[in-house]
C-alpha cells in the first residue's frame, strides 16, 4: 500500500511553546502505511523550528503572511508548485484558513488538493458568531459579543448583558479571564494589539475544560474523534500534557455536531464540562490541533485520513481509540548550522 509517494505542503511549523500543528500533523503522515510522503514545509519566519527538523520536513519555502494578500500568497504557492508538484496542501493556522478557502478552486485547477471547511462552516463557527451557531444547532454555548473598543465592554456590563468574570478572547488566538473592568481594559488592549479587531467578550463558564480532535468528511460523517483532557496547562493556556478520555457523551456530542453541520476537514472542539455534567461549547478551531499526535498514538491517524480525503479517497471511519493514552510535551535545543539559517533567510528556501 505504500508504493505511492505524495508531495504534501504543510504550514504551522512553529514548534515552539505555543506550537502550531504542523510537526504533529507531519508525524502522523510519516507514520502512514497507506502512502509515502515528501513534505514541503511552508514557513513564515526564519526561526520556526520545523524547517530545520529534516526528519520531518524535506524542503521548506518561506511564504508571505496571509495579511499581505491573497495574490502574493497564490504567486508564491504557484512558484513552489512548479518546483515540487504539490498534490496536497494542509494549512494549519486559523489565520490562514480563510485565505486558503478562497484559493481552493484555483489551487485545485493547478492540481493541489485541500480538505477544508466550507466558507459558511468557517464563518459561522467564529467566536463572535457562537451564540447564533449554538441556537442553529441546538447546543449550549456561552454568550459572546464582538467588541471594537474597551468601552463597549463597560456598556455590556452596564446593560447587564455580561458580568465579571469574563473571558476576553482574540479573534484567532489568546484568551484571558478578566475579574473587573480594569483587567478587561488591559486584556482588550493586549489582544487587539496582537490579533486585531474585533475582540470577543465571552461569558465565563465554570467547569473543567475538555477537548475533542475530530475529522468530518463533509457529508455528515465523523471519520474520527478522540476526547482529551489537558493535564498540564502552560501560562499561554496550551496543553503541555494530556490524556485521552473514555467519554461516550463527548463522542456522541461530536458526531451530532459534525452530522448537523456536515463539517468538512479537521476540527478541535473546546468544551467546558460543568458541575451538572453539561457540555458547553466555547470554541471550534477549524483545523487539527497541535496535540493531534495523541490521537495518532491512540489509534486514529487523523492526519493520514485527512490526506486521503483530500485525494478524494473513501476513508472508513475510526471506531476505537486507546483510553488513558497520555502525551507530555517537551522542549529540546536543536543545534543548527548558520549556513542553513543563512539559506532560509536569504533565498527563502531550505533543503
Amino acid at each position, binding site marked *: 500500500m505504500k508504493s505511492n509517494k505524495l508531495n504534501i505542503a504543510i504550514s504551522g511549523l512553529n514548534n515552539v511553546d505555543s506550537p502550531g500543528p504542523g510537526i504533529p500533523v507531519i508525524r502522523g503522515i510519516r507514520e502512514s502505511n497507506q502512502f509515502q510522503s515528501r513534505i514541503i514545509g511552508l514557513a513564515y519566519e526564519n526561526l520556526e523550528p520545523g524547517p530545520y527538523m529534516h526528519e520531518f520536513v524535506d524542503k521548506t519555502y518561506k511564504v508571505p503572511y496571509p495579511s499581505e494578500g491573497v495574490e502574493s500568497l497564490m504567486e508564491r504557492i504557484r512558484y513552489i508548485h512548479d518546483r515540487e508538484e504539490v498534490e496536497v496542501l494542509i494549512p494549519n493556522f486559523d489565520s490562514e484558513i480563510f485565505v486558503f478557502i478562497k484559493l481552493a478552486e484555483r489551487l485545485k485547477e493547478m492540481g493541489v488538493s485541500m480538505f477544508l471547511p466550507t466558507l459558511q462552516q468557517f464563518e459561522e463557527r467564529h467566536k463572535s458568531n457562537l451564540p447564533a451557531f449554538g441556537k442553529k444547532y441546538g447546543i449550549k454555548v456561552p454568550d459572546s459579543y464582538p467588541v471594537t473598543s474597551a468601552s463597549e465592554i463597560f456598556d455590556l456590563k452596564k446593560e447587564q448583558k455580561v458580568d465579571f468574570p469574563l473571558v476576553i478572547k482574540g479573534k484567532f488566538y489568546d484568551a484571558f479571564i478578566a475579574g473587573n473592568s480594569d483587567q478587561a481594559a488591559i486584556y482588550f488592549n493586549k489582544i487587539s494589539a496582537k490579533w486585531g479587531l474585533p475582540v470577543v467578550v465571552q461569558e465565563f463558564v465554570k467547569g*473543567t475544560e475538555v477537548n475533542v480532535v475530530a475529522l468530518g468528511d463533509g457529508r455528515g460523517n465523523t471519520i474520527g474523534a478522540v476526547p*482529551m*483532557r489537558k*493535564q498540564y496547562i502552560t501560562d499561554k493556556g496550551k496543553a503541555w500534557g*494530556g*490524556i*485521552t*478520555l*473514555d*467519554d461516550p457523551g463527548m463522542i456522541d456530542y461530536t458526531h451530532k455536531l459534525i452530522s448537523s453541520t456536515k463539517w468538512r476537514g479537521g476540527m478541535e472542539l473546546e468544551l467546558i464540562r460543568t458541575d451538572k455534567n453539561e457540555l458547553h461549547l466555547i470554541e471550534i478551531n477549524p483545523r487539527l490541533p497541535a496535540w493531534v499526535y495523541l490521537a495518532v498514538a491512540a489509534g486514529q491517524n487523523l492526519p493520514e485520513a485527512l490526506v486521503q480525503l483530500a485525494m478524494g479517497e473513501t476513508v472508513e471511519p475510526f471506531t476505537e481509540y486507546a*483510553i*488513558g493514552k497520555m502525551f507530555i510535551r517537551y522542549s529540546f535545543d536543536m543545534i543548527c548550522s548558520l549556513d542553513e539559517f543563512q539559506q532560509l533567510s536569504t533565498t527563502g528556501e531550505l533543503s
Partner: protein
Amino acid sequence: MKIKKSLAISETGFVFDPSTGDSYTLNPTALEIIQLLKDGHSPEQISQIITQEYDVDESAFERYFYDFTAMLKQMQLVAPDEE
C-alpha cells in the same frame, strides 16, 4: 456504596478515572478498603475485616471510613446512583 465500575486500580495503589482523566495514589490501607468496596462488601463487613487486621477500634475506624468515603464522593469516584 459502589465504586465507579470504570475505575482502573493497580496493585500499587494507582487509581485512574478514564472518564475525567484524573489519577490518584492510595496508601496501602486505602487500597485495601477501596478493593473491599469494589468487591461489594458493606461498611460493617469492612469495619470487621480492618479492625481484626489492624490495631484500630471500631469507632475510630468508622470516623476514618466515613471521611474516606466522603472524599470518594467528592472526587466523583462513586457510581452515580450511589452519590
